[in-house]
């Protein structure tokens, strides 16, 4: 993983709750090159959002804490930075957009105020030029009549428009990395298509790197270059997008791909993944997926497998990754 813009190494983020220690992110590593798009896929509780929040150092402490690992951005470890130094990075070098555009904007400030806040803070512009820049940003995210709508309040915008505003805020300081955490989950399908198209175009135009967090394999297929599949706080598979879809080698990835209904093929019956994800407070001492895995053997119920390299650039956390990969 040389010449990476961002490198996450052995990241561990735990939450200390009354019920016990929740290992939300446990030994996660990956790299992101300049201009590249990485998809992080997983179900609720798999640790994908916590990974993103850890990169931004936005984990609420207590109960959460980053207990180990490194997050190397441009050669510096973000985890060693002081809070004031981190502010220089956050929103400026690395920006994030969230799932719910309804609650991420402040209802009592105008759209303009909220975009200008970031610009004034990070770029030290005066109000007049910040306003000009804010209008430019709204035009960039294709909001019609930007110079008029800049003085409106969030409630005057629809869900899709609010997500555009969030993207405008995130991009206002030309970040090198954009983290999008389920940016279209709360939106309707036709609006989702608009937003995904917009993110893809802007990424190309501005040459930034993208981390897209989603549970939708379809969105990953159309947007990302590399894919990281997470399960119960661990990376279970990592590869480029074509390999993930053509030659998945972890049983969970295989199960995910087989269990989703598709538009292009009508199956008689879905191959469901049986059972439920494990309780993060009481994780087993063997493979976390073993209970639900159709390929499991005795060994899977004894120890936790390591992430192994199946072929160059393709990693899987399964004892039988090489064998399974061929079978599918």
């Amino acid at each position: 993983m040389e010449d990476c813009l961002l490198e996450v190494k052995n990241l561990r983020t735990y939450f200390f709750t009354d019920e016990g220690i929740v290992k939300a992110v446990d030994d996660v590593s990956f790299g992101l090159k300049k201009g590249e798009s990485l998809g992080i896929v997983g179900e609720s509780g798999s640790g994908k959002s916590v990974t993103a929040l850890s990169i931004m150092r936005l984990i609420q402490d207590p109960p959460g804490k980053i207990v180990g690992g490194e997050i190397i951005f441009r050669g510096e470890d973000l985890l060693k930075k002081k809070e004031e130094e981190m502010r220089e990075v956050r929103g400026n070098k690395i920006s994030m957009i969230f799932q719910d555009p309804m609650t991420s904007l402040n209802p009592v400030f105008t759209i303009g105020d909220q975009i200008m806040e970031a610009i004034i803070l990070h770029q030290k512009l005066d109000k007049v030029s910040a306003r000009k820049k804010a209008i430019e940003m709204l035009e960039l995210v294709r909001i019609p009549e930007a110079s008029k709508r800049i003085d409106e309040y969030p409630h005057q915008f629809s869900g899709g428009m609010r997500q555009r505003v969030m993207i405008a805020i995130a991009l206002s300081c030309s970040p090198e990395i954009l983290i999008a955490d389920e940016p279209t989950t709360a939106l309707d399908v036709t609006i989702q298509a608009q937003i995904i198209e917009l993110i893809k175009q802007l990424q190309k135009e501005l040459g930034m790197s993208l981390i897209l967090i989603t549970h939708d394999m379809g969105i990953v297929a159309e947007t990302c270059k590399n894919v990281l599949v997470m399960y119960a706080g661990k990376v279970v598979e990592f590869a480029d997008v074509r390999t993930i879809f053509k030659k998945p080698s972890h049983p969970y990835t295989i199960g995910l791909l087989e269990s989703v209904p598709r538009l292009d093929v009508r199956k008689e019956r879905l191959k469901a993944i049986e059972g439920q994800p494990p309780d993060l407070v009481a994780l087993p001492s063997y493979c976390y997926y073993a209970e639900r895995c159709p390929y499991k053997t005795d060994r899977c119920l004894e120890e936790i497998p390591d992430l192994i390299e199946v072929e160059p650039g393709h990693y899987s956390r399964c004892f039988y990754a090489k064998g399974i990969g061929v079978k599918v």
Partner: protein
Amino acid sequence: MNNYTDDVILEVRNLKKYFPIKSGIVFSKHVGDVKAVDGLSFYIRRGETLGLVGESGCGKSTVARTIIRLLDPTDGEIIFDGVDISKLPHSALRRIRKDMQIIFQDPYSSLNPRMTISEIIGEPLQVHKIVSSSKEREKRVQELLELVGLAPYHATRYPHEFSGGQRQRIGIARALALNPKFIVADEPTSALDVSIRSQIINLLQDLQKEFKLTYLFISHDLAVIRHICDRIAVMYLGKIVELSENDDLYTSPLHPYTQALLSAIPIPDPELEEKRKKIVLTGDIPSPLNPPTGCRFHTRCPSVMDVCSKVEPELKEVKPNHFVACHLY
């Protein structure tokens, strides 16, 4: 669309549901209507699954609630098993409710947190006097739990002890308690994780086969609809814009809205995605408070013509069993 006889379990004719908007504090004045459902006609055959698909605000959930009379229709007829139930008083409705049940979207808010699972599933049995003793009730509850893939010992627990998928199973058990003929499933899988979603879809299909159930399946997810439905109606702003057999709708969609909707859904296959041409609609869904004149889709339609803003297109059969409301055809 009248080429049917008694194999139709439910027929809806010109169904309307308006929500009045009132203004004024002391004297409230009727100032307008949200036309959530505006003149819907369709039928469902016994044993089939009709899918109702559309985006938020198109009125699909209002249709679900109006059909089983959780909401009273403003106008139109709802003929269930030969009886028009649209104006029946509540006492008479109660008998019919045994045959029609609903599964809700949110498994977190649709179960009473203070009741045990046994009470939740057993309540309809008591209300409708299906069981005579508590022993009989418990037996039936255990049967239902097993049917939906839960264990008998779950009966004494409370909803908070279950995951989303398990709760949805409880909701399904409750709907099945009275041996209904017809079930309205209002986005039953939308709140669930991917791996759990397929379990619930499979369960619904198995139950349909076993008990010869008829479903009205409501969803915004065209991939789920494709998988589970026999026929599909596409809604936009309170109207059906297209209605056809499953395969026909996906292989040759006629209405520009259906075409855009289908092309907006990403397919989990990167190579296919690269070759696909996308129709990305501009603009947002207009407010149902003040829908556009003529065809309601004309403000976003890529193939809009002059006539579209003036004349409202009617739903007509352009191919056998394929209905579309568009001036192009």
